[in-house]
């Protein structure tokens, strides 16, 4: 399940949780496949909170990008053995997410 803001919705995404209005009424049920019309209506509503759609967020970011970001976060700690261990653990973990 991914939590996203209404502006990031794409046709074809499937709701993992109902979309509620401000008073808690379900407008679109769980499992609804979003069309352009639905998305436009959701975007017109004043939503409280985010929309939950099915899928995995990380996988939408290519692995190379994830690893490059990781590299960037560790740019100033090169040569520190403990930081190297943490970086390497994080890298192995991220690679596993894509297997």
């Amino acid at each position, binding site marked *: 399940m991914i939590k996203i803001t209404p502006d990031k919705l794409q046709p074809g995404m499937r709701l993992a949780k109902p979309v509620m209005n401000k008073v808690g009424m379900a407008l679109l049920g769980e499992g609804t496949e979003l069309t352009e019309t639905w998305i436009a209506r959701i975007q017109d509503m004043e939503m409280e909170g985010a929309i939950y759609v099915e899928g995995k967020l990380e996988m939408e970011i290519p692995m190379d990008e994830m690893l490059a*970001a990781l590299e960037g976060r560790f740019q100033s700690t090169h040569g520190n053995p*403990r*930081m190297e261990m943490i*970086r390497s*653990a*994080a890298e*192995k*973990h991220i690679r596993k997410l894509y297997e």
Partner: protein
Amino acid sequence: MSEVIESKILRHRIENIGNLPTVPDTLRKLSRIMEKQNVSLTEVASFVQSDPALTFRILKMVNSAVYGFPGRIASVSHAIMLLGLNVVKGLLLGVSVFELMQKAMTGLYEHSMGCAAAARIIAQQKGLREPEEAYVAGLIHDIGKVVMALEFTKAYEGALALAETGHIPIMQAEKKFFADNHAALGGVLSEKWRFPKKLTEAIQYHHQPRSAALFPLETAIVHLADILTKARGLGFSGDQVVPIVDDTAFDRLELSEGDIIYIFQELEGSIEATQEVML
């Protein structure tokens, strides 16, 4: 560059957090209750129950998978009985500053929830009796940033910008604008709210764990949890780069690379549950 904001002024703001206009009503009331010398279980429970939104949030937090008691706790009194007053007080603080955190700094809440989960995982790995205490410490370790960003918005924006352009940790950038850093100010707030020393030390020294005289293990856990959350890139704490881990603290925890991979894996599972809590 603008003048450094004096310690006296910073601490004065913290002392008067109950009267600050930027602080929402719930937190103000909560602050008054927390300050009392001997606040009772009933007082806390009835305060929470008088606010349906707060009750809903705290029970969701307690019951979430992050927390490990799936669907078993239905009342605030039950939560306090199970988790203890201090843990519930900490969780209450965590859920009531949620909006403030979002307002103060985008991503700070996600970072805090990630750190909370990571701290609990490490505490369990190290066999601590009350891993939920570590969770609470992780959840509110950056509470000082919230006060700084809300009360001294311009100066804090300056610090954030400096951290970004200078590729330095936010902790270091704060020094150019504030006489005290967020960890020290968080410690002041923790004392004001009569949190146990264990929690205060973990907050106060999460960037310099070797200064923790009484609870070095608990403080080391929050220190590492913070770093691992940043390493994984969860949320945003003001740091663009991962700060260097303290040697003593890291060695005290005796974790292998495999142990750290395990922490990341467990953390992954808690991310989804974390998002549920934030609704």
